[in-house]
């Protein structure tokens, strides 16, 4: 749209597909920045994983082929391990809790990204993820008998499932759908919207009525490129990021709500887990966290997350986790 070459060009890649809610908001964000900077800041967006997965994107940012990326939590946590703390299973149950924790951890995350030569500009979310299966199940014993997927670089979920006595089948996301369809796995985790756009819902009719965890990501720039921006443009980027990515959160949540209705309309069934099993899931989580704390993520970040959770937003302490 701008005839002259932008003075500050950011090449940004993401796994999110064209037309998805994430890409739409990101495009609005870049459009407004280009306008407000009179075309001095420009963006090139590479969608749908054409630049590779999170690991390849990070490597390309390191050598300056890319200046930024929309990363998933599991991918970028290879670089900033503490970033995975909000992905601990059954940590949060409401958007209130999510907002409280992410608001309080965001500055810590930002500092840790900066220590690795990265700028974390905004957080994004997939939303709450649910256990989805081809057969109804209500107990832990049933879960143990299922062939259960785990994202191949999600250390926390994998460790947790192993502690539960479930042997997860680690697969990359593109392999999940074919594996579901051929019966190699029969139990997966995803948000409602994600389940629809990735077509997983066509195989998984039964959804456990308690969110298994929370999936999120971040818009990350390389510090080297970002630091070239003059101060007023830094302010512009931050303000626009706050505006557009707050809007993205609202829209993602709306998409998940709509997707939930769509799933129900298409015959999905919510299954109530058995209470005893639910207690065991929570107890086992404590064991896993104990094992991983100070190892896969730092004790400090875990404590900070717990503190944020326990200061209930409206004064009351949240009882169960």
């Amino acid at each position: 749209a701008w005839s002259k070459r932008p003075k500050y060009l950011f090449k940004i890649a993401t796994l999110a597909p064209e037309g998805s809610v994430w890409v739409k908001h990101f495009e609005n964000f870049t459009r407004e920045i280009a306008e407000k900077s009179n075309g001095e800041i420009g963006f090139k967006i590479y969608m749908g994983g054409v630049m590779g997965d999170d690991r390849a994107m990070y490597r390309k940012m390191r050598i300056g082929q890319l200046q930024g990326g929309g990363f998933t939590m599991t991918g970028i946590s290879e670089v900033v391990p503490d970033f995975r703390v909000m992905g601990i299973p059954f940590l949060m149950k409401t958007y209130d809790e999510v907002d409280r924790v992410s608001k309080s951890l965001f500055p810590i995350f930002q500092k840790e990204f900066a220590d690795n030569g990265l700028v974390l500009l905004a957080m994004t979310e997939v939303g709450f993820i649910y256990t989805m299966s081809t057969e109804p199940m209500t107990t832990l014993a049933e879960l143990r008998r299922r062939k259960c997927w785990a994202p191949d670089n999600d250390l926390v979920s994998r460790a947790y499932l192993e502690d539960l006595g479930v042997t997860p089948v680690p697969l990359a996301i593109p392999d999940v759908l074919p594996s579901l369809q051929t019966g190699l796995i029969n139990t997966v985790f995803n948000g409602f919207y994600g389940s629809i756009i990735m077509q997983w819902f066509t195989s998984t009719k039964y959804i456990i009525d308690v969110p298994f965890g929370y999936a999120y990501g971040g818009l990350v720039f390389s510090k080297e490129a970002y630091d070239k921006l003059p101060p007023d443009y830094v302010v512009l980027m931050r303000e626009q990021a706050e505006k557009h990515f707050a809007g993205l959160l609202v829209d993602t949540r709306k998409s998940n709500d709509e997707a939930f209705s769509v799933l129900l309309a298409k015959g999905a069934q919510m299954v109530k887990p058995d209470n005893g099993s639910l207690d065991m899931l929570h107890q086992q989580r404590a064991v896993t966290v104990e094992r991983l704390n100070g190892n896969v993520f730092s004790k400090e970040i875990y404590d900070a997350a717990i503190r944020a959770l326990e200061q209930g937003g409206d004064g009351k302490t949240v009882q169960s986790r």
Partner: protein
Amino acid sequence: MIVAGWRKTTKVLHFVEDTLLSLLLVVMIVLACLQILLRDFFATGLAWADPLLRYMVLWAGLLGAAVATRMDKHIAIDLVSHLVPERILGWLRVVAHLFSMAVCLVLAYAAVVFVGDEAAYGGGQTILGFASWQLNLIFPMAFGLMGLRFLVAAVAGVFRILQGGSLQAINHD
């Protein structure tokens, strides 16, 4: 003497390559079959097996490519060689080998940079205790080896032209 030493070195190198390749192939077959067995009959599995298998494929392929260089078995588009007289063709082949050497050495250099970066910033990816830079070491090794092989092929080509096809010793490496 030099020729004998050279022969011995290449013989050892070939043996190492061949052994490593055969081992990689056998382990790939066994490990993949074991995964099926564990999953379908014991509802369990080795978490490290699949990512390790993917790197073994990479190692087998790049090592295989080094062997293909030694066997002169690379895929090539050869459209003009039958149009050129024999004598000139010999020299043109030498030029092509030197070009291939140069490209492989640049690739090896790029691979050294990449492995160095991985060692410095690689992050948390490990498989069975191997860090990312170690898993990717095959890139500089394979491209370096291929570069050397193209150099040897070029030198052998020059000798062949000058001496009318003798010097069998370094012909084949």
